[in-house]
């Protein structure tokens, strides 16, 4: 029962976390401005890093998913 609930809600919770990094509707106060300057500092190298890390993380999530699916099939034998 609890497991089912967690399963249902986990996607919503995870995706809602992404709203924390969206700046579209916010005015730049001091806190967000500092984050902004970090990303723009050092000739914006952090932007490249963020892009590459995003790709890597999604690749890993995909691999783990495939791994889980194969494990499931193996257990079904």
């Amino acid at each position, binding site marked *: 029962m609890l497991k089912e609930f967690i399963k249902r809600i986990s996607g919503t919770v995870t995706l809602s976390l992404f709203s924390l990094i969206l700046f579209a509707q916010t005015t730049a106060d001091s806190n967000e401005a500092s984050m902004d300057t970090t990303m723009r500092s050092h000739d914006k190298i952090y932007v490249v890093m963020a892009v590459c890390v995003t790709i890597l993380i999604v690749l890993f999530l995909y691999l783990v998913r495939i791994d889980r699916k*194969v494990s499931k099939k193996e257990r079904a034998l």
Partner: protein
Amino acid sequence: MKFTWWKIVCIVFLLFTFTAGFLVKVPHVGNLYQSIRNFFFHVPMWFGQIALLTLSLFYSIAYLRKQNIKYDIYASEFAKTGIIFGVLGLATGSIWATYTWGEPWSNDPKQIAAAIAVLIYLAYIVLRGSMNDIDKKARVSAVYNIFSYFIYIPLIMILPRLVQSLHPGGMEGAKGGGNPALSGGSLDATMRVVFWPAVIGWVILGIWISNLKIRIGLLDHKNLINA
């Protein structure tokens, strides 16, 4: 998931590579400037390929010894992932070369040798596809795989070092380049700290991907293997 700890090590090391690789202070070498960071990403492709093709060789030998079709699946999947790593190595190398050597393909001995090596292993896949008899396919391709490995190693490790090369490690005038990636002194200390975790991470990632494909292959052929 099987071997969870290895996979966690892989993820942690590669995330470290992809963050520290962009951020650490790198030495100024020639006309490389910041592109020296490619060393953390391009070179581990080749380390990964060597590791995967070596595993493929071992399983081909194991097949010829035991005649178990399982080992044939292992050998072919490791070789296929090895080809992917080789193609990625060639592609990333070409991008890097465009901005340091002036053109994507300058017929550098190591470029040519690496391309031939990839073609040799592509021929392995073609050879496998050309036979329907599973036992015959496994035996012939195992023999071919053993041969191709012993062409592959001289092609990428020995021949480029005997001639002048744009890659480090070639004969530079009278002095030989040695083995630039492995001998400790020639690589900057901070770069080494990022480079070796990158190599380990990519090798494990290659094995992980191959392992998934092997397990799918074993599931597909479970009737043959249990028989």
